[in-house]
């Protein structure tokens, strides 16, 4: 377990590199295979922490592999995932969620699927976030949606924030009924 912790800290941190990620995945796979033959040294009834660790370490390794394997595939930088070998954010290629699952219990790698995000429904389409270089590779739909949002905001300059919110991205109907009331804010006359 402590080897896994070291690998995750050293090679799958915030600043990542393809070759190191590959090493991490290889080592984690070895650890996973080893963990399937895990045994415990102490025989104590009750909540034996060693037994708890033994149960958990296999699952932790699988989770670590999901992270490391997913990070290795994602050849861009985004938020806390910074690839030194791919420093630009790539909305065109990677504006999508990684979905990992483990269909084969005997396998040592998860299956990765990707779910694309719908830029045309975003309240805040991906843009420059105010820090770092403005070098992101834009998603093809971003410009159109950004213009749309700007238009809605301009048209509703006199409208209240609830109206604008509804035009941009309605969500009130998703709330349980008792929480749909319109919250008052300090300094805002109702």
């Amino acid at each position, binding site marked *: 377990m402590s080897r896994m912790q070291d690998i995750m800290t050293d090679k799958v941190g915030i600043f990542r590199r393809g070759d190191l990620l590959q090493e991490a995945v290889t080592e984690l796979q070895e650890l996973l295979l080893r963990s399937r033959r895990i045994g415990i040294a102490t025989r104590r009834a009750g909540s034996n922490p060693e037994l708890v660790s033994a149960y958990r370490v296999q699952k932790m390794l699988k989770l670590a592999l999901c992270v490391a394997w997913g990070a290795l595939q994602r050849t861009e930088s985004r938020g806390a995932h910074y690839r030194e070998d791919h420093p630009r954010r790539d909305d065109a290629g990677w504006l999508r969620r990684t979905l990992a699952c483990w269909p084969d219990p005997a396998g040592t790698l998860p299956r990765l699927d990707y779910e694309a995000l719908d830029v045309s429904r975003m309240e805040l389409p991906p843009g420059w976030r105010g820090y770092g270089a403005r070098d992101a590779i834009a998603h093809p739909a971003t410009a159109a949606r950004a213009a749309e949002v700007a238009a809605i905001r301009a048209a509703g300059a006199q409208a209240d924030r609830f109206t604008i919110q509804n035009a941009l991205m309605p969500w009130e*109907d*998703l*709330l*349980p*009924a*008792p*929480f749909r009331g319109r919250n008052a804010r300090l300094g805002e006359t109702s």
Partner: protein
Amino acid sequence: MARSLESSAPPFAGKAARPCSTVLPPRRLRASRWPARLDLLQSLSGLVLALFLIVHMFFVSSILISHEAFYRVARFFEGSLFFAEPQPWLVSVVVGGVLAVFVLHAWLALRKFPASFCQYRVFAAHQEGMRHPDTRLWWIQLWTGFALFFLGTVHLYGMLTQPALIGPYESADRIWSGRMWPLYLFLLFAVEIHGSIGLYRLAIKWGWLEGSDPVVRRRRLRLAKTLFSLFFLGLGLVTLAAYVQLGIAHAGRAGEPYRPGRVLAGEAVPQPGPGTPLPPRTGG
């Protein structure tokens, strides 16, 4: 997805109408006010006893000034200001009052005693392991208080029933020839230690003299407690020694009451007191 969850879960929505309010329950039967009163009474009776103790120590130690001084103090309590003849029953009344407060305090303090061997053992081990001064102080108070049940009662009973036998020779004879000095020695330690810790605890318990800095305040209170103990123990020991010395000197004529102006052979002449000489004691 979230929409279907909301529509399929009306109980949640119903509960959420009053998410965190609690309606006050209907009025219950009122809890007894006696625990509050008993607690106050215990503190109050302890305070009265401690104050009495201070005054008492000063009166008793007047023997250190002179036999005459103590004689006058004793006569004062027999009403010498108002009556021509000494009225020892006045002393009995005061002693009776003190005894009543004493018994009340002991009775109330019983609530705090370990009530079983199990409790006793747990606390003994606890104070041993904690190495915590205030916890240990309570343990000391417990034992001194326990000792006072007996020591204090014997002393108070004697004073209650023989109030006239308070005087330089009378008291000294009681202490030496009456072999009361061992009891008084234990009583002195028990009562001074118990009293000073008690006063300290009263201040902590009720938050008296709470300054801006509780740490400094507690350190000062502890210092005051220790000084109080040491002062009264010292005073008490010297006084007791004076009585013992007098008792040994007077042993040959034990039982003879003190008369102002008359001196024991070999003793220094006491200073004549101011004012008119008091009438000689009649009864014994």
